[in-house]
C-alpha cells in the first residue's frame, strides 16, 4: 500500500492583506477622530433624546463639577492668550510671557485670578492634580466667570458657542448660579451637553 504523503506546506502566512486592512483602519481612525480632552473633574452627563451634535470650533465650554466648581475651556491658543490678557488686565495682574504661553497651550482652567500666578508656578504634572481644588468664582460679589465670558465673547465674536457640561448629580442651585451669570450678560442661547439616550417614539395612547 502506498503511503499517502502529506505535502509539507509552508507555515508562512501572507501578512500583506492583513496589513492592508490595518492601514486602512488606522487611517480611518486617525482622520475621523478628535482627541479626548482631559477634564479636570470627571462628570457623567445626563442622557437626552436631542440629536444635535456640538460644533467643533469656537466653543467656550463650561464644566460644572458635581460639587459646583466651575472650570472653563477655550479652543484656539491665540484666542486663549488674548482672552487671558483681557481678564488679567481687569484684575490688574501682570503676566510673564512664559505664563501666557503655558496658558495658551493648556486645556481646562479655573483658578481665581488672585491665585493665578501662584498656580502657574506649580510644575506641569502637579498642576493637573491641583486644579480640581480651585474653580472659577461665580459669586455675585466676585464673579470672575462673567469676566471670562465677556472677554471670550469680545475676542471670539458672536459665533462663539457656550456649552455647559455638568454632572447628572450637580445640584440645580449651582447650575442656577452659572445660568444666572450668563443671563446677566444677556447670553441667552447656549448649549447643554448631554449624552444620547434612546427613547421609544412618543405616541399618544
Amino acid at each position, binding site marked *: 500500500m502506498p503511503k499517502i504523503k502529506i505535502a509539507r506546506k509552508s507555515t508562512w502566512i501572507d*501578512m500583506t492583506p492583513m496589513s492592508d486592512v*490595518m492601514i486602512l483602519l488606522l487611517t480611518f481612525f486617525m482622520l475621523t477622530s478628535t482627541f479626548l480632552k482631559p477634564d479636570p473633574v470627571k462628570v457623567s452627563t445626563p442622557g*437626552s433624546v436631542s440629536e*444635535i451634535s456640538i460644533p467643533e470650533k469656537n466653543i467656550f465650554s463650561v464644566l460644572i463639577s458635581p460639587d459646583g466648581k466651575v472650570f472653563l475651556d477655550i479652543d484656539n491658543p491665540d484666542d486663549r492668550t488674548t482672552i487671558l490678557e483681557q481678564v488679567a488686565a481687569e484684575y490688574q495682574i501682570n503676566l510673564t510671557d512664559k505664563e501666557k504661553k503655558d496658558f495658551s497651550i493648556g486645556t481646562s482652567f479655573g483658578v481665581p485670578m488672585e491665585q493665578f500666578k501662584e498656580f502657574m508656578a506649580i510644575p506641569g504634572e502637579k498642576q493637573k492634580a491641583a486644579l480640581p481644588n480651585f474653580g472659577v468664582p461665580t459669586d455675585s460679589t466676585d464673579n470672575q466667570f462673567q469676566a471670562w465670558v465677556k472677554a471670550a465673547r469680545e475676542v471670539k465674536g458672536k459665533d462663539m458657542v457656550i456649552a455647559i457640561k455638568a454632572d447628572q448629580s450637580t445640584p440645580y442651585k449651582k447650575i442656577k448660579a452659572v445660568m444666572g451669570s450668563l443671563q446677566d450678560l444677556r447670553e441667552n442661547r447656549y448649549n*447643554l*451637553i448631554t*449624552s444620547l439616550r434612546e427613547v421609544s417614539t412618543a405616541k*399618544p*395612547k
Partner: protein
Amino acid sequence: MSAEIQEKDSGGKKKAGHMKKLSTRIDFTPMVDMIMLLLTFFMLATSMSKPQTMEIGMPTKDKMDEKDKNEAKASEAVTLYLSKDHKVYYFMGIPDLVKPNFLKQTDFSPEGLRKILLSKNIAVVTKVNELKEKKMKLQVSKEDYDKQLAKLKSSPGTPVVVIKPLDNSTYNDMISALDEMLICNVGKYAITELEPNDKTILKNSNVQYEVAPKN
C-alpha cells in the same frame, strides 16, 4: 508568528561563484505588529462619538416682564416644579391659592410627566407623528420638515410649560424635563426661577423647596 521560515529555492543547487537568489518576500509581521499598536492607541485615545447637545434659549432677565408672565397664566399653562429625589409637582392653569392640594405629584417615567404632557398636547403630537411618517416616506424634504415642525410646535393653543427647578433638584432633573418637552413636542417652554408666589404654593403643599442645611 515569530518563527520565520525562509523558503528555499526549489532547485537551488549551490554552486560556487553563483549569486545566491534572495527571496523577494518581505516579512510583514513586525509591520503588522506596529500598526496594531498604533491602531489600538488611536482607538482608545480618541472619542469617536461627539457629545450631543441641547440648544436652549433663556428669557432675558429684563425682558421677562408682564407679557411672559401673563402668557404663563393662561389656561394652556402647565407649571412644573422639579423637586428632590426626581419628584415633579405640577399644576395646570392659574394657581388657586385658596384651594389646597391642587398641586399634583408625578415623576419622569413614561407613565408620569410624559403621559400628562402628551394628553395635553395631543393635537400637536398627532400632527407631528403624521409629519414624521411623511418624512420617513420621503414625501417632505428636510427643510420643509423643520419648518412645519416649528410651525406646529408654536401653533396657538399648545401648552406653555413653565419649568421651575427647585434648589434641591439636580441638573439631571432639568435635562429630563427639557427632554420631555422634546419628546412631547412642546414648543413653548421656559425655565424660570421661583417667585414669592411659588414659594407660598409649595409651602401650602408641604413641599420642601430649599436645600436642607447640613448639620
